[in-house]
């Protein structure tokens, strides 16, 4: 790119893409940016260089508008980014690709669907999208993988896809945050070639890139060197080198650092290993790992001596991590053997684990523990003596420079420091073998050098065997031996110098890429579609037509809304288990609950303490035993027996008939029969009370008739009881219309509740921050698929109720359906409100369970009518939408009612929807921070 690099004077005249004035940013107490003053020229490629944690990402997130400005002023594309109107205007002109592989992609969506989603967000119509996506995928070499889910792409391909998504709307300002971190050299080279091609097509586009790879910085037009939240220097790569008199940018950067940071730094030289015929530390024999019909590792063998540093190189997804997992016993190989110190690795062997330190690629630090707590926990888990732990932690902390962050939380730390912490954690128990999976990707040169000095000491002095995978060629150079791996196979395994010699290459990178290209060529010959890295097409994407300002700046845009609808429903469809659970599960629940809850209590137990023991008293007991509600237990002997048997719950009812009962009855003298009811469960006790009273009345009437003849009785009156709406008093008929509202609350709310908070937890919420979508579009868009699913649910439940459970439906089906629609809109909105408010998925799930289950079961008239509730519960019952839908559901099912009778119950539902949506919109922030 040197021929394109503009000279310094030229840069000064260019218009400014972003102007930053005295901007500071802090996360809690940590100051990430200190009064930054900077002007980024437009139309060129600007690189932010510097180690991790110096504020590069923070600065980029401020410029992109993803994070709210705290202090200072930031102007982007001729306007204040803190200004909401301006932000709304420029969302469509900025593209932002956040840090982390595929962080803003949707793993279950295919490559095409991911790009398509972004196209929709920016308001392209179908034809336009099809054209642009085809072009982008072709130019990035992703066309053959259009149908592959993004989650199954290699790191390099994920980043290319991320780029496609960023470029779909022809941005004027492209912001890339460490786009090549964690990507293999070949993919990295292809990525930058792609960017160059794109820039050729659109010369006016400004590109701002953050990177920790100094060799990449060479190709940028203009550099901003940053350290500790401040700008160290700016200028073209040449200028920086000249100013510092350094040969490479790496050296230049180190020279730019303040004195105290540089102190003690020197280039890493690992002393040669004394070639002692040592013990074999790690041995792999024909290791093979298959997942289904996919072979991840294919017949890999090697031997590593004790104290050797063994490097493992390869593209993402080539099988490095799988091999390492087999070595540590995390995975059992399909074929072959792994041995550590001559012992076969067995999963679950604790002794082997004691001797191995493992640092995995996916960060395995506990984000809920501070740095000190992380170290402490690991030391303890590895069984270190409690007394020795503080000293060991102290040692690790000073060795890795973790002093300042000792009490910080890992997720507040920059990538580089987290990685150092990971290594410290892996080393805390002084293992004999250290397995490091890409330990230094994204770590700054100084830190990397000091890291390798530690490895050198460990290997040469402590004779720790080190097995390390890396993407950095200068690191590979430091290893005693390296293996190149591709598509599950080891291509070559030799000393670095020998490898370069063999290929006749000047650098290791060249040699590596050579080997890779050969291997790809080979596999492309056999099975073209499956090659991992397709060579990039030379064709630059057509720039031409003016950026489609079809993009609407309106407050509400249906296409953006449907973009989220489309995405959410795709994700729902990709997870059929969830939808099936929702549909089938609710039918099962309706049956179980409708059948299970029954207010007609039967099988109650009772016993009699008969102190009279006459025909009359036995007749009384028989009257109770003869009713279908009670089952008689052996008679009670005395008060102690009564007390004991009631206390252990054996008896629900105890009857005491006094001595002389028959005599007194005969004489017409007043007598009292005592009845004790177990009141521990009031609902049951009440029913018992009602039954006993009824039976007593009956017995009296009977006796009166015997005594005085019919006339005495008929002289009274009749009480005709009509059980309306459910003449047979079947519980299923009464319960099902109440269970449907319950299920249509809980299931849809639980479906919707994770949709927002999940994006927050997994990071894709960033797409909402940096695209023109408004909160209302976002929420409504996400809500629609869940409303649709809930309506399917409603139809199923109603159909099952009517045709399978034979619950008579007497009213207006249209009314019920309309009410159900409003109701599920409200319940899904409730889920979204909780989702917008909560920060973690666990809290969201718990909140939903708590805020739906209890109010719906207890306050909504399902068991006790709302009119008889008291206090706060009564208030909740009156505003909770379930209350009204229960009335509508019971009215239409059992009471034969229609809209004219029930319209008043529609009003609260109609009010609930906008209130909930408004609440959700207010809770949903359009920027982080």
């Amino acid at each position: 790119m040197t021929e394109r690099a503009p000279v310094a004077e030229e840069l000064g005249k260019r218009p400014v893409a972003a102007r930053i004035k005295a901007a500071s940013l802090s996360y809690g107490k940590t100051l990430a940016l200190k009064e930054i003053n900077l002007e980024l020229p437009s139309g060129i490629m600007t690189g932010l260089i510097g180690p991790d944690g110096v504020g590069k990402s923070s600065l980029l997130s401020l410029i992109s508008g993803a994070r709210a400005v705290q202090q200072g002023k930031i102007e982007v594309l001729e306007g204040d980014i803190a200004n909401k109107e301006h932000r709304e205007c420029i969302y469509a002109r900025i593209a932002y690709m956040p840090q982390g592989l595929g962080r803003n992609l949707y793993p279950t969506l295919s490559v095409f669907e991911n790009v398509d989603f972004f196209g929709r967000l920016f308001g392209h119509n179908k034809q336009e999208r099809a054209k642009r996506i085809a072009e982008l995928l072709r130019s990035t070499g992703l066309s053959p993988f259009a149908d592959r889910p993004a989650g199954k792409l290699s790191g390099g391909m994920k980043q290319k896809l991320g780029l496609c998504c960023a470029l779909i709307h022809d941005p004027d300002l492209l912001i890339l945050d460490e786009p090549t971190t964690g990507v293999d050299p070949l993919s990295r080279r292809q990525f930058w070639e792609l960017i160059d091609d794109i820039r050729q097509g659109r010369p006016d586009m400004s590109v701002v890139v953050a990177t920790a790879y100094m060799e990449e910085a060479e190709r940028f037009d203009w550099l901003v060197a940053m350290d500790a939240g401040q700008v160290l220097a700016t200028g073209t790569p040449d200028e920086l080198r000249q100013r510092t008199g350094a040969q490479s940018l790496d050296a230049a950067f180190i020279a730019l650092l303040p004195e105290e940071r540089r102190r003690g730094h020197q280039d890493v030289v690992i002393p040669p290993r004394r070639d002692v015929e040592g013990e074999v530390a790690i041995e792999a024999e024909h290791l093979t790992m298959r997942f289904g019909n996919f072979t991840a590792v294919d017949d890999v063998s090697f031997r590593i001596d004790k104290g050797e540093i063994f490097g493992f190189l390869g593209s993402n997804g080539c099988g490095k991590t799988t091999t390492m997992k087999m070595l540590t016993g995390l995975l059992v190989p399909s074929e072959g053997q792994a041995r550590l110190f001559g012992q076969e690795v067995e999963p679950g062997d604790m002794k082997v684990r004691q001797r191995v330190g493992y640092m995995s690629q996916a960060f395995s630090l506990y984000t809920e523990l501070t740095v000190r707590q992380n170290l402490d926990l690991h030391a303890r888990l590895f069984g270190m003596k409690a007394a020795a732990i503080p000293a060991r932690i102290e040692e690790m902390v000073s060795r890795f420079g973790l002093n300042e962050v000792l009490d910080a939380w890992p997720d507040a730390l920059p990538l580089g420091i987290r990685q150092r912490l990971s290594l410290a954690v892996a080393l805390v128990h002084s293992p004999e073998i250290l397995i490091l999976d890409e330990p230094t990707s994204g770590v700054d040169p100084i830190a990397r050098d000091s890291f390798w000095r530690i490895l050198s000491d460990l290997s040469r002095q402590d004779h720790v065997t080190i097995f390390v995978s890396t993407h950095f060629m200068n690191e590979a150079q430091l290893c005693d031996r390296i293996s190149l791996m591709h598509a599950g196979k080891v291509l070559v395994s030799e000393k670095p110098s020998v490898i370069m010699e063999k290929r006749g290459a000047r650098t290791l990178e060249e040699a590596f890429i050579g080997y890779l290209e050969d291997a790809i060529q080979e596999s492309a010959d056999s099975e073209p579609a499956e090659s991992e890295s397709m060579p990039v097409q030379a064709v630059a994407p057509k720039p031409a037509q003016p950026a489609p300002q079809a993009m609407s700046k309106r407050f509400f845009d249906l296409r953006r809304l449907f973009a989220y609808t489309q995405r959410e429903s795709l994700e729902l469809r990709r997870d059929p288990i969830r939808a099936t659970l929702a549909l089938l599960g609710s039918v099962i629940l309706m049956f179980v609950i409708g059948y299970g809850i029954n207010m007609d209590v039967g099988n109650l137990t009772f016993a009699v303490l008969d102190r009279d023991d006459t025909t009359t008293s036995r007749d009384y007991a028989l009257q109770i035993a003869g009713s279908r509600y009670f089952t008689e237990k052996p008679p009670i002997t005395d008060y102690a027996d009564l007390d004991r048997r009631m206390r252990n719950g054996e008896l629900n009812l105890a009857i005491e008939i006094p001595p002389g009962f028959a005599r007194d009855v005969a004489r017409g003298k007043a007598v009292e029969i005592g009845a004790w009811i177990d009141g521990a469960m009031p609902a049951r006790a009440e029913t018992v009370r009602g039954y006993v009273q009824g039976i007593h009345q009956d017995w009296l009437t009977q006796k009166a008739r015997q005594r005085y003849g019919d006339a005495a009785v008929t002289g009274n009156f009749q009480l005709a009881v009509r059980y309306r709406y459910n003449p047979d008093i079947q519980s299923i008929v009464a319960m099902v219309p109440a269970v449907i509202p319950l299920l249509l609350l809980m299931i849809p709310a639980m479906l919707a509740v994770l949709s927002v908070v999940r994006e927050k937890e997994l990071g894709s919420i960033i797409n909402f921050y940096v695209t023109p979508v408004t909160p209302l579009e976002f929420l409504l868009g996400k809500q629609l698929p869940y409303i649709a699913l809930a309506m399917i649910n409603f139809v199923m439940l109603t159909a099952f109720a009517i045709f399978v459970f034979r619950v008579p439906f007497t009213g207006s089906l249209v009314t019920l359906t309309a009410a159900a629609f409003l109701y599920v809109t409200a319940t899904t909105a409730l889920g979204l409100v909780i989702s917008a408010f909560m920060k973690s998925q666990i809290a969201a799930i718990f909140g939903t369970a708590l805020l739906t289950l209890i109010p719906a079961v207890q306050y909504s008239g399902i068991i006790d009518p709302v009119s008889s509730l008291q206090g706060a519960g009564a208030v909740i019952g009156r505003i909770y939408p379930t209350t009204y839908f229960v009335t509508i559901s019971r009215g239409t099912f059992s009471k034969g009612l229609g809209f004219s009778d029930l319209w008043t119950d529609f009003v609260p539902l109609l009010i609930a929807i906008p209130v909930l949506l408004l609440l959700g919109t207010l809770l949903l922030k359009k920027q982080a921070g």
Partner: protein
Amino acid sequence: MRGRNILQLGIKELRGLARDPMLLVLIVYAFTLSIYTASRAMPETLNQAAIAIVDEDQSPVSARIITAFNPPYFSVPRIISQSEMDRRMDAGLDTFALDIPPNFQRDLLAGRSPTIQLNIDATRMTQAFSGGGYVQSITLNEVEEFLAGYRGGTTMPVDLVLRSRFNQELNKGWFGAINNVISSVTMLSIILTGAALIREREHGTIEHLLVMPVTATEIMLSKIWSMGLVVLAATAFSMIFVVQGLLSVPISGSVTLFLAGGALQLFATTSLGIFLATVAGSMPQFGMLLMLVLLPMQVLSGGTSPRESMPEIIQTIMLAAPNTHFVMLAQAVLFRGAGLDVVWPQLLAMLAIGAALFALSLRRFRQFLR
């Protein structure tokens, strides 16, 4: 299996919980405000049952019947016309409607045995049954007392004296409070362990544990004790300060025995949480599974409606749920003052269910870790 590892990993879980303030707020809410509100909201026995009377007689006896219905059992009866009756019942305004026909008193005294019609809204199962009985006996009493003024001696002088033991006033709020504590215990313990496990997998930290010298059993036990402890502490707090304190529910039995039962219940439910997490592939699936398990456990355990009212088969199936036994234990211990000699079968049942769930989820958990 080493106790130290279990302790350390458990402390890690506790620290993780302390980092989620929203979750802490929810836990506090679930064990205080939620219980308080629910208990206070519950009608004491039959409370404010909505009753309307169509008085077509306008006689002393009908007036007598009308005045017999009064709060707190019934709302003050609304006097309505017959044409209003159907509409009001349809709208669910009244649960009971008593229709006293014209010339009721005259016919009554003439021995013509007139008929009073009682309409009950049977869709309201709870009130329909217990309230229906009340309405009948109140009406009966009033009419008989009225008649007794005219002619005596035709009724039997046998009186049924009903007393409720353990909860004399049949205050639903008492048991409601306990029932809500139990459902909070169940809900929280399942979510805390299950969702936390899924989160660990989604964030990749569970894998890391595997390279360390800890076993699956240790990991599981650490989750069980730490989350169990949190919930148990919350339960104890709630029992002492909310249930006995704020709500002044008289507890006749031993709270300690109840908490011991709670510990066994937690053993079972935390294991269940882990089991559900290993079955569910992702957080959204877990959410669905949770609802499918939680709802029946909440509704059919015998806390919301009496077990005696459920069909035999459901009663049997629900014996497999730890909740059912815990509800039985709670009733026996807290209200009937039962001791260990009475509730040992429940404790044993919970232990057995817990052990079975633990063994099952440990097996699944081992596979899940692969």
